[in-house]
Each structure stands twice: as structure tokens, then as C-alpha cells.
């Protein structure tokens, strides 16, 4: 069967199970947009390519399937760099197709030429320039295979225009052909048996153990196994920003988020533990604080599918390379059999009551506003949480609002939280929420955004309106680049430099309406719940709620950058001495 490269590309995407492409056409990718008209694949036309990338990420976050984005060459490819890096940092499976100038023009600085493969080399797991139409199916199969196996990540396939136009003899490579074409790519899934035994011994012997759970648990779809392990051993669980939802917040063993803005019990439990069981976590500086002072008495078991994470930041006592689900399941089996053979677990009673004490004394908290005072952003988050429909997916931007979202939401199931953790990309939430809603149309999707973040990618709400993707956006509008303001207040003597946005501009309600959304403005605490109820009732278009909140609120607890986690700062109404 003869096909053009363009037909082969679209057919390959179909065969890989693609149900939706987020994209925007242009000169070099034009040939691929023609067969797309005849394809069952849904295409969502974005307003900016960065939006397409974050939509693909949001889609991948909630479905576990790779998000697909397709854009043209040059400026479109460079617009894709931020989402690719974002997906790389957070290990999100994503496949990006870019157009390229014709093979004969490559290297001539042709119109809209850029070295896409060169530019994206360090922000993709793998990328490839395809020089012949007959190579396209294999390149697409490799891209999906690499994006979704091992440690997931973004891949990119760059396709010159003439490669799309010329014809080829159709051939769909077999699994064996794909494997043979990648002789150096063999992700290790199963953990080392002896290491797992070692780990089980340490777990049973530990007096102050903590399960330190990162995003890898979600990537491995291991939430159930995690719960079984925690309940079997009675060990408390901390969930990092990337792992919120992997373990239910209302579970008695859940400590919630640790780290720079983590709660005191979670951060301190890690800090004072004698055994950290790290599952799919990478000892990010936002978790460890000053590495030299991090969890000084703890032995470390580190389970990760990426061998390079072992020992990158903290040398593990027991490194286990493998898929988190398989390893945790094996760990459970080994612990069970050691127990039935008579090994007793060390007494963790004292540790557990210490932790309960911390949790009671140091809940994440704020001072509610007095009548007539400005609206508190944390209050808005609580109200949103309490009035969101069952199963709501929460998406966030980057800044103070993101930390409040993570702190105040009650996560009860995996894949209900979408955010930009590693790269911290302002502008992530609106397009990511759209992608999430496309992936899970049955769920309510709320984006919590900052007034700064919203202005970076808000135009995608036009996409959402036109495509009838009814997402909801709550802007915690403090008229500031609030997180930066907080640092300037605390560490730069309140010298506020270039962080004040504007209390008047833009008019978010009018802007929302101009984009085809419902716009609601909220100024006082009494208006909060009615606005949320109203927003929840809208299901035929996007909604934007502009919560005008107190600009002076800061996120606590906080570990200042570069400090040890022992130096965490509590809100003034909590007494740190009681943490001793």
C-alpha cells in the first residue's frame, strides 16, 4: 500500500491509540493536516503552541496515556520548548510532532527553519529528525514506546515537509522490530531480589520509619500497593507535591506534603526519621532543604526506575532499581513471609504518638479574616474544597496559590491533582486544565490560578469555549506576583521590586466574558460560596471566578531556601518550641 508520509504519520498516530491531538498548523506541517480531516482523531486548535503542550500534559496526567501535540516548524517548535521541559522535569509521557523545512533546505536558514532537534535535545527524553517517509512509522512507534516506558517523558519527532509529501510503502513495525531498533533501551522493571530483602529487613527493624512518596508512585500506578504496604507496616506516608492524591489525605497514616511549604509534621517526621523509604521520589531541593542537614539519622531505601536517581542527591543504603508497583508488591510479599517466619517488627509506638502530637499542634492554618477585612485566599481554597463535586480534578498554576491548593485541598484519589512541580511553569494551569477535562470529560475540573499566571496563557480559554470544554478557573487574585512578594518581604527587607501587578487591570470578568466564559467577581467572604455554587452549576462553557484576596497573606510553614528543614518557620500563632 502506497501512502504519503503525511498519511503514514496520521495512520501511525491512530494505530498508537491517539484519540486527540492538541495543535496548530503552519507551512511545514501543512501536509499532515490534510489527512487529519479524514481521521477519527479529534484535533483541538489552540491559540498558542505552549497551550497545546500543557494541554497534552494535563491530558497525560489524568489519563496515564501519552498526550500528543502537533505544531509547525520554527517559532511553533520554539513555543513548545517550555511544555517539553515541563513534561521532562515531571516525567509526563508526551509525544510532540513538529514540522520542519524540506530536507533540501535544512541548514540553509530557510524560512521558519530552526534546529528543533538541537534545541529540544536537553528537554526531551529522546528526539529524532526523520529524513525519509518510509522511516516515519518506526519513528512514531519508538516515540510512543520511549515516552511511555521506563521513566516516562516527552519525545519529539521532527518531520520535514517533503518527507510528509513524498510517498512510501506502508509498513507497521512489529514490537520485535521496535525493540531491535533500540538495542540500548531496556528499562529494568523488576527490583533486585536481594535488595528487596535487605529493604524488608530495614523496614521491620526501623523505629522511626517514614514512607517518602513521590510522583513515580503515580506513574507506576502503584497507589493501591502503597496503601497495602503502609497499612501492613503502620508506617506514615508523606506525599510530595507531585504525589498528592497517591495516598488519601484522610487516611490516619497520611501526613500530607513535606518540604519548603510542607506541613510541620510531614517535614519534621522526615527530618527525625531513622528510615526513609523513598518510592519514586528524587530528593528535590524543595523537599530536602540543605542536603547536608537533611534527615541526618535516616537510612535510605530508594526505589526508582531511573538508576541515575540513585545516589544523585543522597546515597541510599539500599538502592532498588525497578518499577514502583512491582517492587512494592514484592516488598509486601517478603515482609509477610518474614513475619510468618517469626521476624517481629520493631516497636514504632513512641514514634507514632510523637507524630500524632505534631499533627495536633501544627495543623496547616491561617488567621481567618475579621468582619470587614479582606478575603483570605486560604478561606477561598477551603470553600472550593468543601463545595466541589465528588471526584473533582484540581489543577494549579505556580506560586502561593499552588501551595495553598496543595495544603488545603483534601486529596482522596490518585490522578486528581495536576500541577507543574519540577519546572514551576507559570501559565501551566489553564491549558493543563483544558487537557485534563478533555481526558476526563466526566469529571469537574477546577484550575486554581494566580493573577500573574493567568495572564500568561489565559487565551486558551477561547479554545475551551470554542471547543466546548467547560473548565472552571478560580483566580486567587492578590494583585501581586505573590510568591516573589513573599520572598521580598521576608528576605529583602520588604523592598518590593517589580512584583505589583495592578488591582484594576485587567478586568478579569470582562476578559472572561470576551473569551466566551462566565465571569464572576468575588470581593467578600459571604460571596464566596454562592459564587462557587454558581460556577459548579455551569456545564456548557468555561467559568472564571476572580477572588479578590488579601495581598499580605504568606504561605506557611516555610523553610527558607538553602536552610535545613530544622529551620522551618511556622505561622506566628504556632509555637516552634513545642516541636522539640
Amino acid at each position: 500500500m502506497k501512502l504519503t508520509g503525511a498519511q503514514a504519520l496520521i495512520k501511525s498516530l491512530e494505530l498508537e491509540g491517539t484519540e486527540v491531538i492538541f495543535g496548530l498548523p503552519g507551512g511545514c506541517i501543512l501536509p499532515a493536516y490534510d489527512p487529519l480531516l479524514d481521521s477519527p482523531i479529534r484535533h483541538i486548535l489552540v491559540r498558542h503552541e505552549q497551550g497545546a503542550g500543557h494541554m497534552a500534559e494535563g491530558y497525560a496526567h489524568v489519563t496515564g496515556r501519552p498526550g500528543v501535540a502537533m505544531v509547525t516548524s520554527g517559532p511553533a517548535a520554539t513555543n513548545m520548548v517550555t511544555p517539553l521541559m515541563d513534561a521532562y522535569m515531571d516525567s509526563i509521557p508526551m509525544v510532540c510532532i513538529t514540522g520542519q523545512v524540506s530536507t533540501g533546505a535544512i541548514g540553509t536558514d530557510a524560512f521558519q527553519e530552526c534546529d528543533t532537534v538541537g534545541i529540544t535535545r536537553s528537554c526531551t527524553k529522546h528526539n529524532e529528525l526523520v529524513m525519509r517517509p518510509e522511516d516515519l512509522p518506526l519513528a512514531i512507534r519508538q516515540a510512543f514506546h520511549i515516552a511511555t516506558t521506563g521513566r516516562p517523558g516527552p519525545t519529539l519527532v521532527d518531520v520535514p515537509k517533503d518527507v510528509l509529501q513524498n510517498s512510501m510503502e506502508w509498513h507497521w513495525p512489529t514490537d520485535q522490530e521496535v525493540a531491535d531498533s533500540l538495542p540500548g533501551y531496556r528499562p529494568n522493571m523488576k527490583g533486585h531480589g536481594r535488595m528487596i530483602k535487605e529493604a524488608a529487613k530495614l523496614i521491620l527493624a526501623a523505629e522511626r520509619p517514614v514512607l517518602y512518596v513521590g510522583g513515580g508512585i503515580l506513574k507506576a500506578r502503584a497507589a493501591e500497593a502503597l496503601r497495602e504496604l503502609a497499612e501492613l507496616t503502620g508506617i506514615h506516608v508523606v506525599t510530595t507535591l507531585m504525589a498528592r492524591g497517591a495516598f488519601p489525605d484522610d487516611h490516619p497514616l497520611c501526613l500530607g506534603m513535606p518540604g519548603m511549604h510542607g506541613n510541620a509534621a510531614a517535614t519534621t517526621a522526615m527530618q527525625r526519621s531513622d528510615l526513609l523509604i523513598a518510592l519514586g521520589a528524587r530528593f528535590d531541593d524543595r523537599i530536602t532543604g540543605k542536603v547536608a542537614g537533611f534527615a541526618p539519622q535516616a537510612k535510605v531505601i530508594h526505589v526508582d526506575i531511573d538508576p541515575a536517581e540513585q545516589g544523585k542527591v543522597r546515597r541510599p543504603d539500599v538502592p532498588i532499581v525497578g518499577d514502583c508497583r512491582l517492587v512494592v508488591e514484592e516488598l509486601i510479599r517478603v515482609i509477610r513471609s518474614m513475619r510468618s517466619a517469626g521476624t517481629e517488627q520493631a516497636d514504632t509506638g513512641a514514634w507514632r504518638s510523637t507524630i500524632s502530637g505534631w499533627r495536633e499542634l501544627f495543623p496547616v492554618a491561617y488567621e481567618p479574616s475579621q468582619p470587614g477585612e479582606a478575603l483570605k485566599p486560604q478561606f477561598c481554597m477551603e470553600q472550593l474544597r468543601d463545595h466541589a463535586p465528588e471526584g473533582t480534578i484540581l489543577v494549579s498554576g505556580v506560586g502561593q496559590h499552588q501551595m495553598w491548593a496543595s495544603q488545603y485541598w483534601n486529596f482522596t484519589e490518585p490522578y486528581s491533582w495536576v500541577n507543574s512541580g519540577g519546572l514551576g511553569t507559570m501559565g501551566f494551569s489553564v491549558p493543563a486544565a483544558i487537557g485534563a477535562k478533555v481526558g476526563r470529560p466526566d469529571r469537574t475540573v477546577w484550575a486554581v490560578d494566580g493573577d500573574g499566571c493567568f495572564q500568561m496563557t489565559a487565551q486558551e480559554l477561547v479554545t475551551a469555549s470554542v471547543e466546548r470544554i467547560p473548565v472552571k478557573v478560580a483566580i486567587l487574585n492578590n494583585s501581586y506576583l505573590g510568591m516573589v512578594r513573599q520572598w521580598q518581604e521576608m528576605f529583602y527587607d520588604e523592598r518590593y521590586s517589580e512584583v505589583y501587578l495592578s488591582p484594576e487591570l485587567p478586568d478579569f470578568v470582562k476578559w472572561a466574558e470576551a473569551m466566551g466564559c462566565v465571569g464572576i467577581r468575588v470581593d467578600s467572604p459571604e460571596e464566596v460560596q454562592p459564587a462557587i455554587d454558581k460556577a459548579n452549576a455551569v456545564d456548557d462553557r468555561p467559568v472564571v471566578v476572580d477572588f479578590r484576596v488579601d495581598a499580605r497573606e504568606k504561605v506557611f510553614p516555610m523553610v527558607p531556601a538553602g536552610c535545613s528543614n530544622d529551620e522551618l518557620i511556622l505561622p506566628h500563632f504556632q509555637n516552634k518550641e513545642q516541636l522539640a
Partner: protein
Amino acid sequence: MSTELERYHILSVLVQNRPGVLARVAGLFARRDFNIYSLAVAPAEDDGFSRITIVVDVESTPLEQITKQLFKLIEVVKISELDPRRSVERELLLATVRANPDQRGQVIELVNVFEGKILAVGTDAVTVSLDGYPAQLDDFEALLAGYGIVELQRTGRVALPKLDREARLRAVNNPGKAG
């Protein structure tokens, strides 16, 4: 100070011979702040593969991190660490040295002592070559410097395991790809 043997390790990296693979390796070292002391690439014995010989400086980064990160490159198929004490290493040096007719004899004598070659002779310069152990080349270069070096080029070392005892190629265990 660590000795040269501790500080510099030789990695022999077998890669799929695909466009951009050298850029990936070089980019990885730059991006992760790993130090390359020297690097040489050429096609390997099998079609479709190349061998990159990299001398890495492990003073600032543990060798383990370097090999693990290298393994994450999709085209990297095999990495062997060559123990300098159990491998044969060679490097080639080319140099053009100032040598007026009075000094020419001395330079030629020096080249002969090192068992190098005279490649070209001009009125007041000669071009010489030497292949040998990197340390030998260091000595040779230092002695040539006394005459005045006009231009000098070294290839960086290539290495293979010694044959005399059992295979010395210590394969770095591929811990599994993760990307």
C-alpha cells in the same frame, strides 16, 4: 591531590551510529557539569555502531553518576570502564616546531630518541609526529616547547583492554534504561 590514575577514568562507550549522537554525549557532559578530559570517536567493528573513548575527570562527579546518565541516552548500548593499568592506550601528537638550520639536528635527534617521525622539513621549522602513551607525549611536548612550538595537535587517547590476561573489559553493569 589525587593521582592521575584516580582522577581520570577511561570509558569506552558503544553507541548506535546515528545523527546527533555525539552532540547528545557532549550536551550531556556540558549540561550536568561533568568534565571531559579528552574524547575520540570512530566507527566500531560492527556496522551501525561507533565507539567513543572518553577520558573523564571524576574529581568533581562520581564516575557512577556519569555512566548512569550516559546510559540514559537511548543510543548508548554498552559502556566499559578501562582500568589504565590493564589497558593499552595510545595517542597521536603532531607538532610543527621552530628549527633553524642550527637547531634542526637537535630536534631530529629528539624525535629519534622518542621513536617519532619527521613528516616535513622547512627552512626554519619541522613537522613531527609521535604516537605513544599519553605520558610519553607529555614529555615529548615539554621538550619540544624549548624550541618553540608553532602549532600542535593531539588526538586524545584511545584505548583497548590488554590481551595478556583474561579479558580486562570491565563492563559497567547496565542498571536498566529509564530515560
